[in-house]
């Protein structure tokens, strides 16, 4: 097992990240630069659930891509367990990916339709063979174990993604994310594409897994109700800037920024009607 961080220590630190997309030069002049992120700073501590709430165009997708090192930020630094991600070599980055995993929004698009569930779930183990060292037999066993952990069964190993419903596919994605033994899970709107009753199951699963495995969650969503349920701390992002940050209960009870107040007021609540 790689060296675990101390409880409470910051696992993921985003320090003054900015991302600027240069304007395109067309026939009729140059379009404006797009400022996707501006001086964003956050810290996610070990064992907690941190929510990032933003609407479309707020920059949360850009931030996710920057954390996963799929894009380089224009300025700033991202530290994972104290190490600056941009300073890592390619093999070191690959090793790090074993500890920082992601679950995407669309369960229908995030699974390769030509791979069996077994291959999907064991792929991270194959890629990180040097740190996990599992034989094919052990990999299959662990895949069955992971499926059991997310509420599916070993009989589902040989099936293809199209044979499963949305909620089940999302569980397969969670099992895949857990395969390499990560400490931090980035969850990018994991339940937005699911029905309400299925969402409840997946949220409960996430809570359960966090308690059992001591995971740290970075939960990105536009749904305040879900974030309120799951997260300990949250940050609101608007037009590429962090507008408010703090404890979940604190922000909901006494929002400081206008944007937070507006979002909370606009939440479609199922208000309990008096008898």
């Amino acid at each position, binding site marked *: 097992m790689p060296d675990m961080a101390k409880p409470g220590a910051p696992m993921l630190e985003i320090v003054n990240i900015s991302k600027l997309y240069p304007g395109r030069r067309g026939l009729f002049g140059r379009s404006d630069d797009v400022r996707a992120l501006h001086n964003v700073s956050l810290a996610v501590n070990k064992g907690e659930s941190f929510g990032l709430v933003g609407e479309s165009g707020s920059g949360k997708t850009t931030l996710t891509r920057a954390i*996963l090192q*799929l894009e380089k930020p224009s300025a700033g630094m991202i530290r994972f367990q104290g190490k600056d991600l941009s300073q890592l070599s390619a093999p070191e*980055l*690959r090793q790090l*990916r*074993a500890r920082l*995993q*992601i679950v*995407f929004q*669309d369960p*229908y*698009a*995030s*699974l*390769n*339709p*030509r*791979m069996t569930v077994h291959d999907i779930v064991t*792929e*991270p183990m194959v*890629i*990180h063979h040097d740190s996990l060292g599992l034989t094919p037999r052990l990999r299959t066993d662990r895949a069955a174990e992971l499926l059991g952990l997310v*509420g*599916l*069964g070993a009989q*589902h190993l040989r*099936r*293809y993604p*199209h*044979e*499963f*419903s949305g*909620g*089940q596919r999302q569980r397969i*994605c969670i099992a*895949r994310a857990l395969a*390499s033994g990560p400490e931090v899970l980035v969850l990018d709107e994991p339940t937005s594409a699911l029905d309400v009753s299925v969402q409840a*199951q*997946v949220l*409960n*699963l996430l809570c*359960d897994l966090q308690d059992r495995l001591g995971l740290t969650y970075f939960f990105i969503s536009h749904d305040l109700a879900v974030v309120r349920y799951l997260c300990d701390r949250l940050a609101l992002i608007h037009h590429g800037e962090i507008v408010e940050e703090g404890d979940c209960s604190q922000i909901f009870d006494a929002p400081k920024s206008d944007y937070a107040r507006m979002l909370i007021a606009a939440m479609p609540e199922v208000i309990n009607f008096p008898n």
Partner: protein
Amino acid sequence: MSYAMDDLTGPRFDKLRRAFFRFRQSKLSLLGGMLVALVLFFAIFGTALAPYPDHIAGGLDTSNRFVAPSWEHPFGTNELGQDVLSLVMAGTTVSVLAGFGVVLIGSVIGTIIGAIAGFAGGWLDEVLMRLTDLTLTIPGLILAMAIAAALGPGFGNMVIAISLSWWPGYARLVRGEVLAAREEVYVTAARAIGASPARILFRHILPNTVSPIIVKMSLDMGFAILTVAGLGFIGIGVRPPTPEWGTLLAISRSYMPEYWWTAMAPGMAMFVAVFGFNLLGDGLRDVLDPKARR
């Protein structure tokens, strides 16, 4: 546990069964399938089943020149007294094999070039695509003729010549598919897991581009056979006594219209083969259409 184990949804229709069901829906596709099966049957067993095997090897029967279609010779005999039916049956092997060879080699070369171009991007993409464009500026048949003439006669040389003019279509197709697949979420997921570029290309992207390639290969078979016949018609490629539909047609041209049967059999055979592969290709495309998938 407040979450529970789900059962699988719906009736368990195997993806293949469903695809085959859709295929069966179209009468034309079935017809295409049957015609192709017929052609393939003769491609494999044609030489063995031919009623006059010695004629295929080059034997003559000058006493029976230009016999009209009859019971002994359902498609008559040619100028050398050889049974036209036997020649055409044996010719199926050559033409279809040549067609397969062309499509196979062309698709392999094209897929490699297109995959590298689409995946790597940048200057490599530019260079490879300009090479593809260059090859496309030369008319296919002319290019094949030039290469075949340079390499000399023979079955192998002919197949190589045509393949070298055939691959650009596949390169463009595969490049487009790879470019599209690169943006898929499951590819991003693979990168996030830490997969190497090679793994992403071979394990994630290419398997998902196979369907359009197979459709194109099937549709191309007909045209490949036509091109092979075309080269044979001009006199490049295989030489008699190896029977080939194109050469048979070329020879029979001089004896038209009195001895029409010498052209009819090879002509019909070509029609059946090309038509069958076209229908099959259309049917496969409908079945493998990504919009109908999922």
